[in-house]
């Protein structure tokens, strides 16, 4: 018998649910609509409430300044159980009063930290693996299909590098894009198909890069397994040096 709290996927709704389910020992929080329900489960649709959400966040930040960031990461992960894991993370934090990452002997803590690390790791990886192409309008365009919902986490990194140059990071899986116009950036929903016209230089640079990539490897030390372990094949789709292999 569970009390199901259905949230809309936004952090605000999640924190509202945390507030409402706090004293409920049978609470189960989720955003995945096709959940398997059991006999006797009861269903609540949670409506986001900014005031309740803010109270929860404030409390968390007071207990551990890193907690809001860690929960944000957990909620971006692709796991179907992310809301419940984040909820239990919060319970552990409030009950124990010490950062959850210091309590790795607790199973919940390990699962939460694992998700958070996966999201962090993918964000870090994509800072390296993302590839931009120059379009004729002068905007640099980078498509990607990350496991986790992280485009907005990537934006600040590239904004501070590109400064005066406009660019787009497009998550083709979730149909969202981070768009930077040279001054500010925002997140937008995107159409399913967008057409790109690349500059003439683009082909030249991508050929030089492929040439460099192939030449810089030391043939006597070939180690494909290690290469794939560090750069998983699922990222290759958008990587210039891996096209036409």
């Amino acid at each position, binding site marked *: 018998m569970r009390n199901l709290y259905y949230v809309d996927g936004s952090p605000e709704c999640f924190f509202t649910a945390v507030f409402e389910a706090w004293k409920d020992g049978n609470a189960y929080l989720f955003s995945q609509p096709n959940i398997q329900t059991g006999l006797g489960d009861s269903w609540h649709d949670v409506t986001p409430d900014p005031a309740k959400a803010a109270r929860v966040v404030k409390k968390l930040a007071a207990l551990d300044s890193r907690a809001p960031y860690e929960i944000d990461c957990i909620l971006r992960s692709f796991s179907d159980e992310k809301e419940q894991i984040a909820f239990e993370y919060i319970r552990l934090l409030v009950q124990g009063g010490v950062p959850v990452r210091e309590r790795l*002997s607790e*199973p919940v803590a390990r699962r939460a930290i694992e998700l958070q690390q996966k999201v962090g790791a993918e964000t870090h990886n994509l800072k390296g693996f993302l590839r931009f192409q120059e379009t004729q309008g002068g905007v640099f365009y980078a498509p990607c299909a990350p496991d986790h919902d992280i485009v907005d986490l990537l934006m600040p990194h590239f904004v*501070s590098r590109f400064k005066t140059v406009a660019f787009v990071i497009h998550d083709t899986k979730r149909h969202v894009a981070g768009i930077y116009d040279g001054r500010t950036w925002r997140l937008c929903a995107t159409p399913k198909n967008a057409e790109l016209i690349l500059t003439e230089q683009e082909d030249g640079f*991508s050929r*030089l*890069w492929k040439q460099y990539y192939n*030449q810089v*490897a*030391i043939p006597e030390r070939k180690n494909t397994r290690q290469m794939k*372990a560090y750069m998983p094949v699922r990222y290759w789709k958008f990587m210039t040096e891996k096209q036409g292999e």
Partner: protein
Amino acid sequence: MIDENRLKILTDGAKYDVSCSSSGSKRKNTADGLGNAAFAGICHSFAADGRCISLLKILMSNDCVFDCKYCPNRRSADVPRASLTPEEICELTVGFYRRNYIEGLFLSSAVVRNPDYTMELLYKTVLLLRTVYKFNGYIHLKGIPHADKLLTQKAANLVDRMSYNVELPSEESLKLLAPQKTKKSIFTPMGELTAGRAQYLAERKKGGGRVEMKGLGRYLPAGQTTQMIVGASPETDGKILRLTQAMYRKFDLKRVYYSSYIPVVQDPLLPDKTAGLLREHRLYQADWLLRFYGFTSEEILPEDENLPTEYDPKCAWALKNMQFFPVEVNKASVEELLRVPGIGAKGAYKIVSARKHATLTFEHLQKMRIVLKRAKHFITCAGKFFGSDDPETVKFRLMLAERTDSAEQLNLFDQGLLPPADAEKFLLRSTPQNALAVLTGQL
């Protein structure tokens, strides 16, 4: 845009330099500039040999007047020659950077005409890149031995890291294999850069931080590194590690890289076999012990010996020093934990933070994903011992553990994939005083 043929030649000439790390610098972008540096470094791709590609690693020219025996670009070799102009290098770097192919540039060069002429061109390139192209990404510049001191100092003011490669671990070997280089020609500029950095830091302190102009004028924030070729000459690991330790202490090097010799050149003075990856790997492990775990080279091995192949250097040390073990994980200090075979900086950090809230048992450690196949012979958990008392059995188990380790683990240390910054972070987060002592080797 440059042609593919020159790119091929100049990449080929640079690729045996091991370092591709882009870590250690926090250079900021300027208002209308391009790029910045990420302190922990970022890998942008991985080559077919499994190495991280972070920087565009390229020679300005391979047209050398020196004649180092082991080098395919030496004067006496009959190979196609190529050069790039400063503008060409800048355009390539910026073009690659904008597409996020790279984190920055690693520029080196053969000695064209003479050392000063070469250094002048290298300086011109980085100056152009920083000022005209407003590039604030990472730059690693390889210095030219014998070049003018002033030029070198000016270049150091613009780049994030510089390196002079020691190349061979002794003066005799240098004389034999790299006749135009001497220990002095390499150590003198290294020392001058160390002094230059110290002076910069002192001035910054005096000026209340104002000396640090944005982007420009930061003197080697990511310090210096060097590289040694292992197995081209007869020096033992013991000798190599003593040299390493001396350089870490004297020049405040960020890293020493070891490159296991690959015979690309035929010469009666050179071996025709590679030294093998295992030796290189063991040296990196020992190097790690020197830098982060508070070991000295004298503790690790005698001068005339090589590191054991059967197990890693920390295991070897522990087997010889069984009187220190077992240590109790709930009580041991960070530096004691760091001396336990199989427990690294990350493991020590996990233990220290988890034991504040619970008395740790063997099961706890397992669940915390601390690898115990080696460690269990050297620790107790809440008073209980799970290893073997018999030294021969322990030895055997450690050898077995080594053999069952996957290839990935074997390679974690190499290629700069575990950037030192990462390890420092873990150590610093544990208990500051102790960990600092471990870091600085002051234990």
